[in-house]
């Protein structure tokens, strides 16, 4: 037992970081460790975006095979491993959604409202708490409507066209709303970085 045991989540997070580094150095066994630690979170993401069990599982396989083949792209200086993996999985799922193999996922457009708070995942799978607080604060500073549309884009993988249709507004209006929201978001996030 170490004299100053760290919290389990910090240890798990460090283990994940180490596994990513080992994978980047060609240690294949590290992938299974990463898979065990992150599959629940990443599958939650691909399932949410794709809305179809089979598609989401295929996407998940691609995520890990891709990770194995290109683990060197992960920069430990830049992002926490779980943040990076989460973005990676979501991007792959969105790519799959856009290839036309899945059309729209299973979540109807009408239900693409802002998400209720849901049971959080195990602590170690949470992205850095400070960073999380800041993005929520900056998103929360937007008006409810803009925030809702940005969240629907993020969580449901909706396009401008789908968002405009759901809100029954012209495409140009939706683009304008979201772009202004993104601009404010950027200003807010950059201000927090400068602080």
């Amino acid at each position, binding site marked *: 037992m170490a004299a100053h045991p760290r919290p389990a989540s910090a240890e798990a997070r460090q283990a994940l970081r180490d596994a990513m580094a080992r994978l980047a150095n060609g240690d294949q066994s590290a992938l299974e460790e990463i898979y065990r630690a992150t599959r629940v979170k990443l599958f939650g993401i691909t399932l949410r975006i794709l809305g179809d069990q089979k598609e989401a599982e295929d996407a998940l396989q691609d995520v890990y095979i891709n990770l194995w083949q290109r683990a060197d792209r992960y920069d430990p200086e830049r992002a926490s491993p779980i943040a990076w993996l989460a973005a990676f999985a*979501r991007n792959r799922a969105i790519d799959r959604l856009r290839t036309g193999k899945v059309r729209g996922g299973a979540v109807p457009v009408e239900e693409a409202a802002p998400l209720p708070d849901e049971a959080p*995942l195990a602590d170690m799978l949470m992205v850095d708490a400070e960073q999380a607080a800041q993005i929520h604060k900056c998103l929360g500073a937007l008006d409810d409507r803009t925030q809702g549309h940005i969240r629907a884009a993020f969580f449901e993988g909706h396009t401008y066209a789908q968002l405009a249709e759901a809100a029954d507004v012209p495409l140009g209006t939706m683009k304008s709303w979201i772009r202004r929201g993104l601009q404010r978001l950027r200003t807010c996030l950059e201000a927090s970085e400068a602080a």
Partner: protein
Amino acid sequence: MSGSDNTPDSGVQRDDPMIAAEWALGLLEGEELLAARGKYATDPDFAWRKQWWDDWFAPLTDAIPGAEPGAHVWDGIAARMAALSSQQAPAQGTVIALEARVRRWQWVAGLTSAAAAIALTLLVFAPGNAPVEAPGDTPAQIAAAAPMVATVPIGDTGLRLDVTYIPESERMLVAAIGLTADGVHDHELWLVPAGGGELKSLGVVAPGQVRSMTLPADIASGLNDGARLLLTQEPLGGKPAGVDAGPVVAEGDFTRV
């Protein structure tokens, strides 16, 4: 607030950081997505900004409930890894010989490293592939079986399709990395045999992927120096039977490396 929100184009500048944000959010489609991916590969500032947005958005995923994938998912991953790597050790000499050639194609054809890596793997492990001797022993054999490459640039996007044919394995690799589907069209690849003759379909291109296919003998026989590739725009699923092919959007010639 609602008054001004109803006015479209209210002076928000759609600069690169904005496009990076739209992309990170997943809003880009079709041509715009294509352009963004091209820019990501060539513009470090843009790539940095995309990553910046990805990093900031990542904590939002904490609100997504986790889910347990089926046990077969890991089996599939393990099987694919094993297939790609189990024979690496005994084939070491061959790998080195082939690596040198892969480097040569990269130089000649500008193959993406991903495509090259996969090509290398396929060369080594393709079933029924006669073992390749060490370099120097059989230069004639290597020359005769030299891979053929074609680069098919897509308009002025800076993106392209890389097509590699590997005679030893009768396999063709189509790398459409960076390409994306617009959800309305598919792109179909056609071979124009060197001596002329009927177009042969090589199938619909899978955007963003490196695909490997085995070529039937009748198509492989038309694949020589100077054979030409055409890329046409078709309805989803490819050219319907009994209808003329769609417009040619890109073309390129095969050369032997």
